[in-house]
């Protein structure tokens, strides 16, 4: 039996009072890659953003149900959102490095937690850039503006930046959808590498990607009412070869979406 890190219980998210996703219950195992797939508008990103409370930034969003992180309800009354986001990192669809140097991008997380010691910061920056398979490409230009990097490099920088706060979980929202195939391949290799130490949840609309990299797959679908629901969750192997639900089969065989 896998050890569970994140668990949602009957999770529903409303935007302006209208449910966007409804009744989601799923368990995310430690040090595995869990992919959330489904057609556009099924609420994949909305679900992902519940895991680090990014939905808090949208004023009209309201969340009911529970999200448990190592048994702690993330939406409970005493939860420190800042601490949640430090321990559950996020990488976005479009690479969004800060318009500062490569070094400052990675050092930002540790700095705001109060790490001032230059040697310690140097050490963190190098370790995270190595972990994100970017060190060899940027070690001679750490103080160059991050926006001079290519899209794929920027995205790996964003991963390095997320690793610098020493999270346990990495949330990735279509991290390769803005990248070319070679950069995508690098990100996927990197994810496999990172899954030895981190729990990864990835949203993707690319089924091949989900099949290639993930250990578990959640399939979501919005019905006629445009409310996203979890249709099926299971080991990726099983979802892609022996789906239990007819709709999952239709989707993975490309009959819609």
């Amino acid at each position, binding site marked *: 039996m896998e050890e569970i890190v994140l668990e949602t219980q009957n999770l529903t998210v409303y935007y302006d009072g209208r449910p966007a996703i409804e009744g989601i219950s799923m368990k995310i195992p430690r040090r595995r890659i869990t992919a959330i797939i489904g057609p556009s508008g099924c609420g994949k990103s909305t679900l992902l953003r519940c895991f680090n409370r990014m939905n808090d930034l949208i004023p009209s969003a309201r969340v009911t149900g529970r999200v448990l992180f190592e048994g702690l309800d993330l939406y409970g009354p005493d939860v420190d959102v800042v601490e949640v986001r430090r321990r559950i990192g996020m990488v976005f669809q479009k690479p969004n490095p800060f*318009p500062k140097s490569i070094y400052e991008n990675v050092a*930002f997380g540790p700095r705001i937690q109060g790490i001032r010691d230059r040697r310690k910061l140097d050490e963190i920056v190098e370790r995270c850039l190595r972990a994100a398979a970017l060190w060899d490409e940027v070690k001679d230009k750490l103080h160059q503006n991050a926006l001079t990097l290519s899209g794929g490099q920027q995205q790996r920088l964003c991963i390095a*930046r997320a690793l610098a*706060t020493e999270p346990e979980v990495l949330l990735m929202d279509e991290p390769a959808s803005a990248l070319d195939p070679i950069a995508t391949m690098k990100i996927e290799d990197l994810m496999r590498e990172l899954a030895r130490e981190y729990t990864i949840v990835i949203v993707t609309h690319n089924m091949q990607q989900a099949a290639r990299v993930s250990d578990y797959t959640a399939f979501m679908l919005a019905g006629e009412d445009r409310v996203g629901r979890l249709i099926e969750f299971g080991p990726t192997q099983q979802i892609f070869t022996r789906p239990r639900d007819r709709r999952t089969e239709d989707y993975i065989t490309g009959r819609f979406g």
Partner: protein
Amino acid sequence: MGHRQRRELLGKLFEGIALAATVFGLLVLAFLLLDVARRGLGVLSWSFLTSYPSRFPEQAGIRSALLGTIWVMALTALFAVPLGVAAAIYLEEYAPRNRLTRLIELNINNLAGVPSIIYGLLGLELFVRALRLERSILAGALTLSLLVLPILITASREALRAVPMSLREAAFALGATRWQVIRHQVLPVAFPGILTGMILALSRAIGETAPLITIGALTFVAFDPRGPLDKFTVLPIQIFNWVSRPQAGFHARAAGAILVLLAVLLSMNGLAIYLRYRLQRRYQW
């Protein structure tokens, strides 16, 4: 004539009208500047800058008015900029999107359109009388601060709004508090835009005459203002005063003072453009 030719002709016609409008504006401005330069260049001299006003046109200078303008502008910037930027940050980054916020925003926009003499009357009642600041530099600066606050707030909000949401999200996702997001990511990127707003606001303030006359700024000052509570005059008032004299000598002095006012204004703008350029090189998108 074919439909297509007609469309192209209409396009050309509109381009011509737009060009004519641009040229008209530039020509009027050029004419004004040339006219003022022609009348005023002759009186510019070190003694014109360092002499007090006088009954005799050839001895009259702008020392006290220039000092007054510098004092008032410095204090106005000191009061208005922190207040305006802070208000903009509150409205853009903190305030809940509800009816009260919208009401506040609407009123700030309306305040930007209130005639400046109304601010003068407010300043007279509030700062000169109620707070007993008398007809001081401080009262003048506070009045002008009120006048330019709406401009500053609106411009700063535009600058903050232009910062991409993805940047805020990136910082929040790393566990930054709202203040850390604003301080380390949003403000540095928004700063050039805020600077532009600051310049717009101070350029407006430096040319204001009516509210300062309303609060009782003097028209003849033969001493240096030495502190915020001293009586004062400013360049636009000095210019107004000289223009309304019958002697031609004073009219030339007024033109000279206009040139000095323009120089102060341009150097203020130049400084801001330089700062903005330096910052934009650091935070390129």
